[in-house]
Each structure stands twice: as structure tokens, then as C-alpha cells.
């Protein structure tokens, strides 16, 4: 785990690059734009990984929203108007279904999924990770391991999530809403 103050003191790219298992050339390709901490994030309080993601981002100063309850109420009640005023990237760690709905809703404000890490949690606790939308960040999933606890790491890596890479269209609408019956399908994502 990483201490935020240490990161700032010694340089975010180097420290987090090591944490994320990023090769040096990848770090070089991530511009200053990339090293921008999330200012707003969505989480789902029913999942411990999602809570850890949110708590970590809150400690970095991000505003977080728990989407427990109806996502439509959240979108039409506050998110849409906020994003229409200012299209700041939205970060999240939610289940696959809520990302699916948010991705459909985000067309209202011409925002789209630009990065996603899919985390498939098996009943025995084994976690599979996949990344889409960034070739630079692909090596980082090796660092995530296959056990619980990735939520905090996903938050710690979040300042690498906005890259100058050409946008990969294939990251959009990558899955439908459904999850396997006996697994939990979580996704860390960026809508920008």
C-alpha cells in the first residue's frame, strides 16, 4: 500500500508506476494530464472493494457518491445536470450492471467509457482482472493479484487513468449488463 504524502513528496509517477507495474516507457507516455486525481467518483456501498476505492479517493480529496438506491434517480436528479455544466471525468468502481446503465445514460452528455478494469470475483474469492481502453495500463493488472483488496489499489492508480493514448473504441459497450450467476462482476471505470 502507498502513503499519499510519500507519493506527493517523491513524485507520483515514479512511485505509482512501480506500484502499478508500469514499464518506464509507459510512464513517459503518460502526460501531466494523466496525473490528475479524480475529483468525483461513484461507488457502490454494498461491495467492500468499492467502499475501499471510495475511501481512498476521499482521502485524496475526491467527492464520492454511493449509488445504492436507484441509479436513474441519481442520474436525473443530480449527475446529468452537473456533467452538462462541466464535463469532468467520472471515475467509479461499481458492478457491471450499473456501469452498463451509466454508459447508456452518459450519451446524454456526450461522455463515454474510456477505460475499464473488469474484476470477476469467483465464489472461492479468486479474482480475475482484465483491462480495456489503455495499452499503457495493461501491465498494471499483473500487480493486482487475484485476491481481495484491489479496490484500494485501483483508487491509488487512478491518477494514471487519463492518458493521451488514442481512444480505443473497443472499450465502449464491452459487455452487456448481466453478470454470471455465481460470480460478482465489478468494474473500475472512467467515463470522460
Amino acid at each position, binding site marked *: 500500500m502507498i502513503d499519499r504524502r510519500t507519493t506527493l513528496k517523491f513524485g507520483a509517477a515514479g512511485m505509482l508506476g512501480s506500484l502499478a507495474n508500469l514499464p518506464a516507457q509507459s510512464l513517459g507516455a503518460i502526460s501531466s494530464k494523466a496525473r490528475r486525481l479524480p475529483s468525483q467518483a461513484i461507488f457502490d456501498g454494498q461491495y467492500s472493494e468499492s467502499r475501499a476505492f471510495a475511501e481512498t479517493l476521499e482521502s485524496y480529496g475526491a467527492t464520492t457518491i454511493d449509488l445504492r438506491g*436507484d441509479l*436513474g434517480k441519481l442520474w436525473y436528479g443530480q449527475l446529468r445536470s452537473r456533467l452538462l455544466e462541466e464535463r469532468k471525468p467520472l471515475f467509479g468502481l461499481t458492478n457491471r450492471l450499473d456501469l452498463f446503465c451509466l454508459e447508456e445514460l*452518459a450519451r446524454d452528455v456526450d461522455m463515454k467509457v474510456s477505460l475499464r478494469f473488469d474484476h470477476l470475483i469467483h465464489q472461492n474469492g479468486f479474482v480475475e482482472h482484465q483491462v480495456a481502453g489503455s495499452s499503457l495500463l495493461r501491465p498494471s493488472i499483473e500487480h493486482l493479484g487475484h485476491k481481495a483488496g484491489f479496490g484500494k489499489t485501483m483508487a491509488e492508480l487512478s491518477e494514471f487513468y487519463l492518458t493521451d493514448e488514442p481512444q480505443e473504441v473497443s472499450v465502449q459497450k464491452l459487455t*452487456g449488463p448481466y*453478470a454470471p*450467476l455465481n460470480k460478482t462482476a465489478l468494474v473500475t471505470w472512467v467515463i470522460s
Partner: protein
Amino acid sequence: MVLPPNLSQAEFDTALSEFEAVVGTDWVFSSDADVALYRDSYSPFWGEEEERIASAAVAPDSVEEVQEIVRIANRYKIPLYPISTGRNLTYGGAAPTLSGSVVLDLKRMDRIIEVNDKRNYALVEPGVSYFDLFNYIQEHDLNVMLDIPDPGWGSPMGNSLDHGVGYTMGSYRDHFGSHCGLEIVTAEGELIRTGAGAIPDSDAWQDFHYGAGPSIDGLFAQSNFGVVTKMGVKLMPMPETYMTCTVTVPRYQDFQAMVEEVNYLEDSFLVGMPSYGSPVGGGLFDPTSLEGLMQNGWPTIEQLEEFVTAQNKHAWSVTFQLYGPEEIVRATWTAVQRRFNDKIPGAAFQDGDFYTLPIPAEDIPALPDKARLGIPNLEIFHIVNRNPMNDNDPPDGHADMFTMTPRTAEGVHTAARVLAEAYQELGFPAATHPFSTPLMFYSRAMVVAVLIPTWRDPAKNAASRALYERCLDKIAEQGMGTYRTNPAFQELAISKYSFNDNALLKYQEKLKDSIDPNGIISPGRYGIWPANMRNNRG
């Protein structure tokens, strides 16, 4: 990038510049990433050559901008595909019927022009969602109830024009049936209003939607004859109370008598949407519990009665929604019980939820069934998300196959039987069975529904398409059809409405050629092709 048919990249670039001059550069979307937003998330052709892909999208903010866009499209013969919110997923979402079309995204036209709770209507633009309208009614403390689809993220206009449906009283849950007045930009850019709206300065547009002479409103639903830019919606006055109540009947053969009684109650405007069920049958998402019963073909009546008796449960149930003053709601429930007791020996009754309306905002989150109270929500995704059919290899979407049947037990059983045959013929486990029950979206027709999975995997999608097509063929052999479907199946669905050598479709295409001579509005939608693209059929 996909281009509109018969247009060069240079010509298309020029047209896009002209669109930008009308709506501004921020509201023309042509990059691959932007256009991907308009893909059909549930496409049965995902990733294949036949997947419907837009060439671009343009989002006007006003009627005048829509008219300008239509004129430009005519000059370049660019097909336009109007959407309101574009989230009617199982019917194609925001993706056009014809690849290369420019999506005319009406999301910015999101004005609620009026909600009148003395005359009980709303007048809205295309981009207004059910959530928006609900929030407006709440914020302004208006005494009306919405009838909404599920999920509620669509728009009243888009849902109505797609023959969408809701969950309250029969006259409201047929959403196109409860529209009251349209404003339309024609395919040539003219602006017309229907009904009393055609009278300059009329205050009765939403009260009197016929006007005089032929009503043309129906031409703009599930069609491609114009771009609707305003629509009136009839609203139910907020009922004083809401109650649910359930009737069960013991024998398999009691279903016909139950259906006849429900028809009487619905057609007398005594009850809201009836929800049929079977205490012994598997649910929509769990038909497997009855597989054993069907191992040797469709069971006989005697076998079915034995099965019901062995379960020690009643064969059928129906749950009613009652709306109105408490005295009337309770008296209606008493009358419903008397009528069932008179007709069906052994009928049993159970009181359900009772609410005084409107529901306080703080109590809404805990409500078990918001749709029947007109409260938009996205909870249905959570219901569908976790179902036994997903197993460990969940689909990525579904194409809903809705069979419209006569309002008889025989109609429902026939549809269930032939749909089961279609599944079994193609090697799938049957999704329907002798206890399949109809949905009463429309008060005057029954719907037997199956959800056919769609995938990101082309091979699996090919199998699903074959299954969908087999279902359509089988129900047509019984004189039945479907009421709406994904663009991938629209031509086949329409081909079943073929009376007198397809006279209906031929007539629709004569109209198309007359009022949209360049064929720019949604070519191919519901099988209607303009003359210059008719060779696209099939």
C-alpha cells in the same frame, strides 16, 4: 467510418459542415468514438457486417433546427434516424435501421412545455424522459400520475411512438393510445400539428386530438414518415388510493373462465393492469422446473390437472391493481370476489398492498413495485441481472419476442406450445410451457413473451437469430404476430402481416414515396423502404 449510401466522403464532410452550421460544432458527432455511443448494446449482429452502425449523429435544439437538418438531408439524400433518448434497448436502442444513417438525436429538445393537472395532460418535447416528467410533477406538486414503462429512462414521446406500454389503467398504459396531439416536421421540412393543434391559437390541442377529417397521427408511430417534435400525453388524475388484490383458481381448465372474467373487469374500467401467474408454473426466468412435465411432448389436460392436484396448489392467479377513492376501491374488490365466486368454484382471494396517494417521497425507495405507481426507476435491470438463465455464461442482452394472442386461454396455450416447439426444434430448452401466462400490456390483447439472448459472440448470435426467426414463423402459422421488435427482425415481422398479397405494406410504401420522395426518414423501419432503396429489402 461508415458512410451514408451513395455518398462520397467529401460530400458527407460537406453535409456535416452544413449540419454544424445549423446546430454548432459541439452537436455534430462523427468520430468513431462518438458514433460508437449509438451502437445497439443488445444487437443480435454485434460486431458483424450486418450490425446497424450510424455514420454520424446530429443533435438539434429546436424545431427550426430540425427543419434545417431535414432540408440538408434532402439535398444530400442522407438518411436520418430520429431518436428521443434512444434507450429502448431490446428494440434497437439508438442504432439506425439502415447503416450509414445519421442519427437525429433529439436529446437536447427536452422541454416540458406544460403539465396541466386540471385537464390532465402534459405537452413535451422528444428529449424529456419519464424521470424528468416525474420530477417536474413532484417539484410542482401537481395532482397527476404517470403511466411509465419499465425501465423508466425512456421518453414519453419515444415510448409512445414505438407503441410502448405501461402498468396502470388500460386507457393509459397503451402509450400511443393515450397521446393527445402531435407536432411533426415532415420529411420535406414542413411543420404540421394534428387535431385541434391545427387551429391557430387553439387552447384545446391536448383536449381534442382528432380535429376534423382523417386523423394522421398513427402514421408517425413505428414508422418513417416524419419527425415528431412535440406530443401531448394524457395523464391520470392522481388516485386517492391504490390497492392490489389477488385471485387464484384451482384447476388448469379454470383459466378460460378466469380470462373471461378479467376481460369483463378490464373492459368495464374497474381494474388496472392484471398480472397473471401460475402458483405451480415456473416463472419467466425459470421455466426449467416444468421440463419434466414436457418430456413426452405437450401434456394432455388430464395430465395437467393431475400435476396441479399433486402440487396441492392452485393452477392460476391474477393480481389486480385498483385505483381510486378508498370506498370505491374496497367496493370493487368486494364485487370482484363475488363475481369470481359465482363463476369459478374454489376461487380464493388475497388482499395485497394498500397505499394512500401520493406516496411521500421518503417512502418511495422502499416501494416493492414502483412501476404500477407511475414512479420511474431502473430496478428492473437488477431483477433481470440475477436470474437462473444467466448461469455462468450470461448473455449480453436480449431480443424480446412478444407474441400477441387473442384474449383466450386457447390463444395463450397455443402461443406457449408453438414457441416451445420452436425452441426444441432448434435444440434449446423450451422457454414456455403449459402454465405460461400472458402479459397484459394492452388491455385488449395478450402477450406471451420470451426473451431470446443476444451476445458479443457472432456464433451464439447466429443461433439466437435463427431461434427468433423460427418463433416468428411458428406463431404466424397460428395467425399471430408480434407488436414490435429489433430492426434485425422488423422485415420478417412485417412480412407476416401479409393479407391480400401484402396490401398493407404496399399502401404504406405508396405513402412513403409520396411524402418522403427522397426516402430520408428512417428507411427500412418496420419494413417500409422508399422507392430508391427498395432493393434493400431482405
